[in-house]
């Protein structure tokens, strides 16, 4: 399996609050083949996300593959309620950077 950086095959990698208590991460793939190859290779799992963020796997609340948008959605427990004392990112819009290091299998169209 050839692995390539996710930044080459995704057109959106973002984070945002899903309400004040959760943070949600989206990876939107450019093409069906890479989306499917990534899904089938199980490279994005609660365990791999927990490792990337250095958090307990129980703080990764959901990993959902959503084919209509060629998307992987990951929902994390927020470190604290949005805007609470010690907050670093009220909107949660800059918490995606660890995802940029992901390596994913090349789909057919990339070979």
């Amino acid at each position, binding site marked *: 399996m050839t692995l390539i950086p996710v930044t080459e095959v995704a057109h959106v990698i973002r984070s945002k*609050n899903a*309400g004040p208590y959760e943070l*949600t991460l989206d990876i939107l793939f450019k093409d069906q083949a890479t989306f499917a190859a990534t899904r089938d290779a199980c490279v994005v799992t609660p365990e791999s996300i927990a490792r990337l963020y250095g958090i307990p796997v129980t703080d990764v609340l*959901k990993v*959902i593959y*959503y084919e*209509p948008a060629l998307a992987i959605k990951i929902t994390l427990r927020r470190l604290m309620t949005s*805007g609470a*004392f010690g907050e670093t990112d*009220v909107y949660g819009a800059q918490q995606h950077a660890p995802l940029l290091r992901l390596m994913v299998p090349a789909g057919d169209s990339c070979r």
Partner: protein
Amino acid sequence: MKILSPTAILGYGFPDASFAEGMRRRPDVLAVDGGSTDPGPYYLGSGKPFVSRAGVKQDLARLLQGQAELKIPLILGTAGGSGARVHLDWTLEIIQEIAREQQVTYRLGVIPADVTHDAVVQALAEDRILPLTNVPPLTEKVVRASTSIVAQMGAEPVVAALQEGFDIIICGRCYDPVPFAALALSKGMDPGPALHLGKILECASIAAMPGSGSDCVMGILDDHGFTLESLNPERRFTKVSVAAHSLYEKSDPLSLPGPGGVLDLSQVSYREWDQGRVRVEGSRFVRDAKYRIKLEAARCVGYRTISIAGVRDPGLIALLDEVLSKVQEQCRSRMDPQAKIHCHVYGRDGVMGPWEPERKMAHELGLVLEVLAPDQAAADNGCSLLRSTLLHYGFPGRLTTAGNLAFPYSPSDIAVGAAYEFSLYHLMEIDDPCCHFPLSERILMP
């Protein structure tokens, strides 16, 4: 039915040309969302708006003019950003000003969304309160400590206002899709497509390519589904851009819970039509056995003072953690015992905090020193002490004996005022979907 959404949040603005194109296509209703919890707890807690007054006035003036021109309903959800009474009154005052300037009388249906502290405490005692995921269970103490408590209204109160004959309806806190779906629901259309369309329209053109939160879009609804049309020729919808929008700010793209039921998107199909249009079918609304509304509130947790400073000295950067902890230790005894201290270190982990996987330091760091205390004077005192102690702290090997910090501003300390935290984000079971959302008439004359 044609539903025109001008902008993602009232006050964000929209191009005249897109709005004129929308008006030319003769919509049946103009609807706009006014709010969000994204900007954090301050706005609901303090009663302040998070959009500019001038922006809201400019948008409202054009929408009121459009309403008068076509004699169609204009529905505004979550007035003033957070939708408490004070935000609603702020919005009404702006409409009053427009009425005066344009010499027009407006007859409004006004639906506040405030829930009294007693009503929530009673619901708590009757076991009708349920925390949302990750939210701690509610206590009476937390309810009493909250400032305004609002609930997201479902479509029913707005449908009732339309049936009373109101053409301009201004709502307090409102489930975001409601202003867009209400007219369709008042005519007995299927709530599945109506609410799903509302979910997309509440963000205006964010679901288009290229996306924008300040451009107009038309949703065309029928009994089987809906079609999205951009009103700006530079944007188009694609099936992926629309499908991707159901991910936006949601934890689950297939199941979106709201007042009275869940929007089930598991059977939805997206098809691309000509001219950048997308057709969506298969959205279903599944009613809950018990009607629940979402409560939101914030409470004041003290007063905040901050100081912003840069560090360029490699010696201090190398020892920063040790120095910050010694400085805090030294200041503690002279601060209010309840004061909390936090140091944001930009250039290291200022954005991600404990989640930051990179451990390398930049050659210069930005510090935001923050003190939260029971009153402003105590916060000012704490921050001043922290800043001056750090400025002159003699760390081992120090060469820079004239000062450790570079301040971009004089004054170096900024009193931020009251600080808030979200306190309620819970569901409350109710019997009558309208009971906390009383409709009243308001006439605004020049």
